[in-house]
């Protein structure tokens, strides 16, 4: 496959453009998609770039089809991905569920927009519940919530590898702001950073006969005849997801050692939280910063440890949604007695000022 980026180079571009370049650099073979704001330019740039590098693209008739074509492509051994947002993310839950059930290495980039329904075409963090636990499954998903363009680039690369290594559907959870804003980043070839891209492999149509027992049959199933069969599969996959979780979990933590209040946020809001913590510290308020990078699996132990070592009395959860990160966090750290405070600003941006004001009002 033709090398996309020979030497590391700085770039100033939108998050959508970044995602397309990262998929190229990751060696993605094909994208399937259906247009929806604010992710359109991922498709737009991919369709411009892909033919130059011998990669494929198909616009399907809707998001359900886009998701299922990715499910098909990865079974044939192609590194395939899709991107969507809002109502498109809702429609894709069925194929995402299939990817969970059949352990398909699917990668989806989600650029959250306002909801419910068509909401706004702009921005939110309201697709957290949908992306982490959507569908009729058990949430066997790997979800990276990015905050910068550099992270979009880094985690698309990492996401493809996670999908193919662990065989759980993997999500890069961005938002409309990250999609549409321009900011600097560095693009690189993964191999030059010592990142080995996992070789993809067909999941079906393998060589060798199963009748003569040359190999085990591939049993990729999304429906079972017996309750007990499904039960065994769900237990097995749940156990596997649990056992690999510790090596997947990622988080950021700053100044929690002596924090009296820990500010918890994810994605683009964590940038404002970081600024807020610095400003509060400068004013003598001992604030700490905690950010789950993986929303699934959630850095539960790490957050519990941060709470324990700080002895903080309060945990402030700030999000551009009405409690989606809050509910996720609450279930993960069940039993902690720290008082949970909330700053819910669904569908609008949060700046440091908002967080600082909230902290002062409760401190």
């Amino acid at each position, binding site marked *: 496959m033709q090398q996309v980026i020979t030497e590391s180079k700085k770039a100033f571009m939108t998050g959508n453009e970044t995602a397309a370049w990262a998929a190229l650099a990751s060696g993605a073979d094909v994208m399937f998609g259906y247009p929806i704001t604010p992710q359109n330019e991922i498709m737009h740039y991919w369709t411009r770039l892909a033919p130059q590098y011998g990669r494929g693209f198909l616009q399907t008739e809707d998001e359900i089809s886009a998701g299922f074509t990715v499910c098909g492509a990865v079974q044939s051994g192609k590194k395939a991905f899709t991107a969507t947002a809002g109502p498109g993310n809702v429609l894709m839950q069925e194929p995402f569920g299939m990817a969970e059930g059949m352990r398909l290495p699917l990668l989806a980039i989600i650029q959250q927009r306002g909801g419910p329904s068509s909401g706004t075409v702009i921005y939110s963090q309201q697709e957290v519940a949908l992306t982490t636990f959507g569908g009729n499954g058990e949430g066997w998903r790997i979800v990276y919530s990015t905050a910068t363009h550099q992270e979009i680039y880094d985690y698309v690369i990492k996401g493809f590898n996670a999908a193919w290594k662990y065989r759980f559907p993997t999500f890069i959870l961005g938002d409309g702001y990250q999609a549409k*804003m321009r900011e600097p980043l560095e693009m690189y070839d993964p191999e030059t950073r010592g990142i080995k891209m996992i070789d993809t492999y067909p999941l079906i149509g393998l060589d060798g006969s199963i009748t003569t027992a040359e190999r085990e049959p591939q049993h990729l199933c999304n429906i079972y005849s017996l309750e007990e069969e499904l039960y065994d599969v769900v237990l097995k996959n749940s156990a596997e997801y649990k056992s690999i979780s510790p090596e997947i979990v990622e988080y950021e933590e700053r100044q929690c050692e002596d924090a009296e209040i820990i500010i918890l946020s994810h994605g683009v*809001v964590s940038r404002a939280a970081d600024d807020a913590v610095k400003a509060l510290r400068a004013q003598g308020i001992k604030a700490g910063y905690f950010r789950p990078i993986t929303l699934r699996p959630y850095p539960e132990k790490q957050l519990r440890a941060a709470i324990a070592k700080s002895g903080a009395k309060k945990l402030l959860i700030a999000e551009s949604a009405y409690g989606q990160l809050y509910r996720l966090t609450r279930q993960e750290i069940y039993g902690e007695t720290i008082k949970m405070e909330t700053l819910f600003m669904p569908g609008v941006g949060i700046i440091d000022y908002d967080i600082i004001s909230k902290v002062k009002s409760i401190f």
Partner: protein
Amino acid sequence: MALVKIALAGEGGQGVQSVAEIIAEAAYNEEKQTIYIPNFGLEQRGGVSIAFIQVSDERIGAPKFNKADVVIALSERAVGRTAHYSDENTLFVYDSGFKVDDTDLPSEAKKIIGLPAIDTANKELHPRVFNIIIMGAVIGLTNIVDFEAAKTALENKLGYKFEKNPDLRELNFKALELGKQMAEESLKEGVQ
């Protein structure tokens, strides 16, 4: 430099987003931390278009902001739409040719500045370079990028047009210069 936040607003087709993009590129080329984000709601289909630009030496936090250091309103409607981005530290700029009610202007501003950008473009240059005059004004008001860096960014963006018609280069650079001068003068003067 400390963080500078600029909101640029106008009608679709005025080139608000193009100018914002050129300014942001120029700042990036000077190795500064830069974020540029357009508003891209449904108002882009026939409403006021706003560009949010932030430039700093340090890492920049949230992509949008509540209050700007400089607000530039390029249409009468944009004045009312952007007044809330102004506080006591804001330079609020609009075209002196606009018919604007005092109630539309921000109640708080460091300075409210009326610039004859449209008139100057129409009479001295060409209506098409109105947005470049505004770009010059942004630089005159904020110094977020070096003037030469702005010219380079303009060349990068419009070079292919300049190649076909070299007069355009001169026209654009003149517009940039005029806008900068206009803004610098306005800072020296009292409130318009």
